[in-house]
């Protein structure tokens, strides 16, 4: 079985400060509750 998550998140063309960034790599084993990615709220 497979799960696909599609979501909106902050992005920025000019500054990377608030952009959503994945904290995973393809092939990584991940568990429920571990961060897929983070963004910073300025």
């Amino acid at each position, binding site marked *: 079985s*497979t799960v696909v998550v599609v*979501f909106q*998140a902050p992005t920025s063309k000019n500054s990377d400060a608030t952009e959503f960034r994945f904290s995973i*790599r393809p092939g990584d084993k991940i568990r*429920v509750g571990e961060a897929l990615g983070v963004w910073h709220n300025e």
Partner: protein
Amino acid sequence: SWYVKQFRTTSQARGSLGGGNTNSQGKAFVMSGATVATILMLGALHARRLYDDKKLEEAREKGIEFEFREDVKATFLRMLPLRSISRVWGSLMNVDIPVWLRPHVYRAWARAFHSNLEEAALPLEEYASLRDFFIRTLKEGCRPIDPNPYSLVSPVDGTVLRFGKLNGAGAMIEQVKGFSYSVSSLLGASILLSLVAEKNTEDESSNTEQESTRIEKSKKSWWRVSLASPKVRETVSECPLKGLYYCVIYLKPGDYHRIHSPADWNVLVRRHFSGHLFPVNERATRTIRNLYVENERVVLEGEWQQGFIAIAAIGATNIGSIELFIEPELRTNRPRKKLLSSEPPEERLYEPEGVGVVLKKGDEVAAFNMG
């Protein structure tokens, strides 16, 4: 080897025509030969699977991307009644196992598929069937939820296949190199998603305008800009641009098979696509076209603090039905009434309108069932 043994046994039985006792001994020999052959075959298949997994991991570490290549097996799979096979499999897995046998069966399963039995919430004897064991809950605290308020967490245990940024609702997600599917086909005709696409287009154009304004302003001295246009800069920081992202996670048979909420969000719509039930392992992704778009799936769609969010739970042959805890009456992997393969999805809007079902980060949402 089974055929050789059977041939030998038959020859022996024919050779000694007078001995009825020899014939019964021969049958016993054939039986034990068949059992040994079956065990050997299962062992060989398991060894092959482990070998393939190792090769795949090695290839991925080297950065090799697999290309899409439809093959004879994929064509053959399309002809099989996989939904019926899935339901029969589910019925078999739902058969009660004698209490004394349960720990042995579940330990064998865990050994074969690398499950951690220490995490199971109940003693092994309490899972009546393999199906119950498969969707077992975990002990309290086994899956701590990331406390960062600015994070989106994984809804499942699994292997990350792909992730990235999308360019609007019509954007494509790559299944493997050389083949992609569209987000709108995966999630269905979504008003929310089309609004996101429109908003993104508007944002793109307003961002271009803001960018040109910013360049013009930067030509002036810094104090003139800070005095003359504080409102423009505030607006930009208060309403950051929103992009559309995706992440594909594959659950192996040994993984924990419950789906949790990746964030605090409101589930507004549920869509159920009654499709095929192809296997979704890595090999299948490289050989079956439109795998995720054709398979049976349940899509939950709604809003979180950053805007649109949707989760698509895609079934497979062995794990065909999806149970929703927020809508227990939903039944998936049912016999098909229509012959058409592309039926429109069955949709339900959750009430109250605009609020739907409120979920907290880490809440249990659904489970994948066997068959």
